């Protein structure tokens, strides 16, 4: 297969992987969703700030000590999910209805075994019939080929919003 053929095949496989992930989240199957992550996952979401001058950085790449929105590893993601499964969290009781769109899937680095992927997402969240919220943003993932599928080894999320429309009780 030529390089273009390989890339097209890889792109298709990743597109299917994301569609499967999106379905798990929208179906509320968070325990299955967790299985998509590698044991060494780092899952982060920095807070957007507009900075003038030399401290200005590309926020999605900002590393180091900061007040993240998400700063998770496998263990803390598991704890978040376990909490929601207690059924005692008012913020997700009854669970939010969500409909996600994941699109603009770009393979940004295919030079190693692990694939760097940029995508755009839009999450439509409904609580209590008429509280409708949209979270929009982008994700930078590092996907690790695993058997015939992938694991997410790194996920960086950057919301478009600088003032969150509500507190966050869902995943991206």
């Amino acid at each position, binding site marked *: 297969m030529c390089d273009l053929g390989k890339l097209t095949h890889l792109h298709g496989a990743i597109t299917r992987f994301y569609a499967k992930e999106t379905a798990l989240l929208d179906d509320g199957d968070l325990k299955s969703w967790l299985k998509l992550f590698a044991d060494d996952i780092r899952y982060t979401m920095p807070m957007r700030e507009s900075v*003038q001058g030399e*401290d200005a950085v590309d926020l999605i790449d900002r590393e180091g000590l*900061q007040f993240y929105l998400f700063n998770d590893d496998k263990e*803390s993601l*598991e704890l978040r999910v376990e909490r929601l499964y*207690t059924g005692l969290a008012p913020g997700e009781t009854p669970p939010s209805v969500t409909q996600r769109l994941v699109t603009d899937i770009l393979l940004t680095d295919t030079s190693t075994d692990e694939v760097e992927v940029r995508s755009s997402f839009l999450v439509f969240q409904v609580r209590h019939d008429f509280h409708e919220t949209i979270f929009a943003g982008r994700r930078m993932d590092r996907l690790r080929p695993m058997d015939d599928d992938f694991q997410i080894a790194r996920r960086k999320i950057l919301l478009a919003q600088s003032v969150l429309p509500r*507190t*966050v*009780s869902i995943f991206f």
Partner: protein
Amino acid sequence: MAVIDNESPDQGSESFLIESGLYTDEDVYQLELERIFGRSWLFVAHESMVPKEGDYITTFMAEDPVIVSRGNDGHIRVLLNKCLHRGNKVCLFDRGNAQRFRCSYHGWTYNNQGGLGSVPLLKDSYMGDLDIGEMSLPAPRVANYKGLIFACWDKDVISLEDYLGEDFRWYLDTFLLDADPLGLQVLPGRHRYMMPVNWKLLAENFGGDQYHFASTHSSVIAISQRPEAGRIVHSEHSGEHYSAEFTSEKHPPHGLLQLAVGEQFYQEDMNMANGLGAEAASWVTNRHDRLQERLGDLKTRPYSFHTANVFPNLSMVGLATALYGRSLIVWQPRGPMRTEVWQWCFVERSAPDSVKERMAFTLTQRQAAAGMVAPDDHENFERTSDNLRGWEARTVPFHYGMGKNSGSTSVLPELPGRVLPQISESYQRSFYRHWRKQMRQNV
């Protein structure tokens, strides 16, 4: 206005009932902007946010946008972010470093001390008719209490020290501001998020509502024994805990929660620090030694408090343990039924990196925009606000009666302020009593 002119909540048999209109009425809200937010010391920044000359952040004093700017003279000023000409903003970033702030509409330009420095066509079109040397961005009074910068539009306001009060300042000093020899360090990435509720319900929650934790946050309690929770739990229900209230004719009421007394809490911090290594353990030990010095020969040995509210809208959280990020929260009012939450994470500057990272991690996982605590508060307040749209529902008052007959003596008289049982609604009653008094003052 009925909700202001009604009897104080401390008078009469139904005194602990608060009218729903306090949380819904647009006229009340507009009057609050003038009489509460226009006349109180409002937190705007910590000095670590503007360490160098030219550094600034933009924030709000209630609905008023302001720039907190460390000018080239080294002084920190608060400037209304509104051009004197046509009212446009002059600074558009969240933070940065700048010599000047330029309005994009006609180009009026101010220096970082607020003075109007230049106006296009000053000679040719104003023809000497504008004395820019006399013009500067409106600036409230500013005061710095051990790094906490407050501002107030009322030039006759009492001093910030008196406003905080000696008793409350003892707790602020002992457990937050004097705790670290190098002081507090703000982290990048302050959170901003909307809550669909009146600001007062949030402020009084942090100052006086330990009661809600067991119900609202029962999911956090339910997972606290799981091994995955080891990094972020602390004793909220075991051990000796109190609340404290600081109410006086001389200053607005402030309140704090989860005042933890006894050695147990230090031992728990040590256990957690040992998991982070010898450097962390040594830091926690030294921190505890410094606390013992500050406590002097008090027989009662408090270790920490966890949350607090400074009237009107500055709250704190995360002080319970040495390994929890210190957080300041401002409840920025956005209409009678909306609040924009501003939340910062601070670490103690002398802490080793392992501790700083744990502090930020714990805050993020718990009481933060995407944490495991705040969304459940959000939900409750959203439902409350939804109900307040109903005409009949608005006639039903809120109930603040817990502990109304329990007397006014402190249960730990050796400590400053009025120390109360952990669960009480005394602070809320003081909060609304003072709120009503301040709302009635028409000059």
